Structure formats: C-alpha cells, structure tokens
C-alpha cells in the first residue's frame, strides 16, 4: 500500500496528525509505553513522515486508554489514528494470530468469549440457567448474527491467509 494513503485515510476519518509538535505528553501518559517499545510521540512522527506503520508491532501495544488523546495539547485524535491504521493493516491481511482466533470465535458463537462447561456449572450453582439469554440460547439469533457478519464480509476479512 502507498504510504501516503495512510495519511489520506486518516484525514478522511477527520484525524489530523501533521499539527503534532512532538512535545511528548502522549508518551509520558502512556501506560503501555512504560513496559513496551511503544513510544507514542515517535509513532505519530513516523506516521507524519509516511513510514510503514502497518508492519510495526507497536501498532498492537496500545490498550486504548485514551490518556494521550485526552491530554494532547494539539487535540490530535491519537487513539483514533492508531485504530484507523489497525483497520488498514487488517484489510491488508496483517493481524496478530490471537486476534484472528477471537474473530473466528465471534463468527462461530456470536460471542468473543463463549460459554464453557466450568461457567455453566457456576451458573447452575448460582441458580441461573446454564445458558444465558443471549445468542447462546437462541439459535435463530445466532444465525442472524452470522448472516450479518457474512453480509459485511467479516468472514472473508479474517480468514486464514
């Protein structure tokens, strides 16, 4: 993908990163950056100069706490930018294997964290029905959810490449 396209995609989404003055408030506020290579200030700079961020593993280290976005003196929507770049990456077939797995759980069960036997037992112990009042209990509702995901081509998007 043409790197310039990333900046344009951000602009289309109403996100302007070129006004960043590299003050570092974002990195100083980042709980993930305390433990990982994620340096939000540098990340924004690299986006500004059209470096390839789609393959950069820092992209997946943001816990979306929004500290940087709330505190940015220039009002840059930093988390929204990261999420938008993730979208571009996923549509280019780039995603973590674990994220592909939970996407398949969503496709199969309509839940990203489906029920298991141990929780069914806990539910019964509490006097609740073993299956909750969600798609787990209503097969037609699950079919609807699956049809909706097919309509959005989510199944194709997250298929093993």
């Amino acid at each position, binding site marked *: 993908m043409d790197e310039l396209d990333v900046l344009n995609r951000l602009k289309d989404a109403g996100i302007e990163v070129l006004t960043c003055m590299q003050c570092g408030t974002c990195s100083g506020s980042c*709980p993930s950056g305390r*433990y990982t290579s994620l340096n939000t200030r540098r990340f924004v700079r690299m986006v500004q100069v059209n470096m390839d961020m789609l393959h950069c593993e820092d992209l997946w280290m943001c816990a979306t706490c929004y500290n940087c*976005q709330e505190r940015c003196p220039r009002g840059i929507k930093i988390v929204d930018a*990261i999420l938008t770049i*993730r979208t571009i990456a996923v549509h280019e077939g780039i995603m*973590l294997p674990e*994220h592909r797995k*939970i996407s398949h759980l969503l496709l199969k069960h309509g839940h990203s964290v489906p029920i298991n036997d141990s929780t069914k037992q806990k539910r019964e112990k509490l006097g609740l029905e073993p299956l909750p009042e969600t798609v787990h209990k209503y097969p037609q509702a699950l079919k609807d959810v699956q049809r909706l995901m097919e309509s959005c081509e*989510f199944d194709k998007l997250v298929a093993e490449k």
Partner: protein
Amino acid sequence: MTKLSLFLGCIIPNRYPGIEKATKFCLDKLGIDCNDLKGASCCPAPGVFRSFDKTTWIALASRNIALSEELGRDVLTVCNGCYGSLADANHELKKDATLKKSTNAHLEKIGKEFKGTADVRHIVEFLYDELGPENIKEMVVNPLKLRVALHYGCHLVKPSNERNLGSVERPDFFDELIEAIGAESVDYSDKMACCGAGGGVRSGLHGTSLEMVNHKLSRIQEADVDCIVNACPFCHLQFDGGQVEIKDILGIDYSIPVLHYSQLLGLALGFSSQEMGIDLNQIKNNEFIEKLKKLTED
C-alpha cells in the same frame, strides 16, 4: 423512571455469572424496570473488532441496539467495553444519516432496522444519575465498612467528548457510590491508570498486558485495601485472572479480592457473598469472605 433492557455482553454471562446475578438482584431490589435483552450477541468488543472492521462492528452493535428499540427500552450495559461500543455506535448512527442508511442495508437482510430511538447507559452512571448516592444510601441494610481500591476503567469516562461524565483525571461520581454503601474509597497512586486489558492487548500480547496489571496491583497493594471494585468485567477478569497468572509467572502473590460494583451493592442491599458469586472468583481469599459474613450477618 427509564425502562431498560439488560445487555449482558460476553464475559459476565460466560465467565463471571455472579455479576449477572448480582446485577439482576440489585435492579429488582432498587425497583428498576429492566428486562433481559434476548438474543443479544457480543457488543462487539471495541478494542479489537472496531479496529479490524468498522462496518462489521457497527452492524453488530446496531443489531443489539435495535433489539432494545423493539422493546421500547434503553440499553443497560454493565461493562465499560460494551458501554463504549454500543454508546459510540449509537451516537455515530444517530448523527450520520449515510452511515445509518448503509448499516440498515445490512440489517434489512435479517429483518431488523436501527431507528435511533434508544439510549445506551452504563449501570454506574445510570445509578448515579437516576437514583443518586443519597437514595442508594437509604436503601442500604448492611453498611460495608471496607477499604476499597476503586478502579473506574478507561472506557467508562473516556473518550470524554463522547461520555460527558466530567473530569477524566480526577472523577468522583463513582467514589460517591462507593461511599454510599458505607465503604471508604481509598485514594492510591495511579488510580486512574489502565488495567492493561483493552485494545486487544490482553488477547494479543498477554505478557505486556500482565506487566501493566502487575504495576497497577503493586500500587493497590501499597494502599492496604480490603478489595478492588470495578465496573467492567474485562477489568475484573484482568485483575482476578491476572493475579493468578502473575503468581504463576512472576511468583508474586497479591490475593486481593476483586468485586464488580453490582456485587458490592448487592452485599450492601442484604444479599450474601455466596449469592453474589464472590466465592466463584479465581482469587480465593477466605479472610475476606469471613469479613463479609460478619458485615452482612450482624
């Protein structure tokens, strides 16, 4: 008062059913009209699915909201992630007619329509706004003299331009609800810090996510509290399951009990810790369970 439908999400019914039971007990006891939202799915999770594909994210979210619209009820969420997803999706669909039209084109295939007639609420802001700490205080039968480390969780208050719940740096509405049941909300270092679960970090980069929760737990431990209270089952899972994983990997044993606000409120309204499923957590702390017994049986 506003009529509600209870949106369960994934982690509450499928991992921590005690929170489901506690929420239903509390709503009933407080006289809040709330039905099950039958056939709902994953919200879908904002940190992962929203960033993978916005079309899918908003289509599934709009279906969940449409189910509640059909009942003529607002959606009640009990999870910061579900709140974030459904409130954001609702807001975007209500303000963007083109997005609403394209989303409804998908929904039409399953005979549903997003109309934009329902609001999305979070149980904490709902209780604060519609009942208020004073009214809750009056209904308490077991004042819980506990030292609580309150964890707001990021997506309850942020992004602030979507939430409009006041200060994101030092909010206090949730603390007031903790004090209302007789407990002390203890101030501690990094109180507003993230638990490290969101944004697909817990699912995608587990080790990083544990380092973040370990940091937060170390700060909570310094504050010498009886328990952690949250309003989000994903933060709950991160604190509860995370402690077990930290013990296994790093050899640090915190054994700090973790409660969702619904469970804490349930105890104060007269239910037992067993009824609220507090003993079904991964972290076992008998001393705390005994303390609760004394507080709720006197």
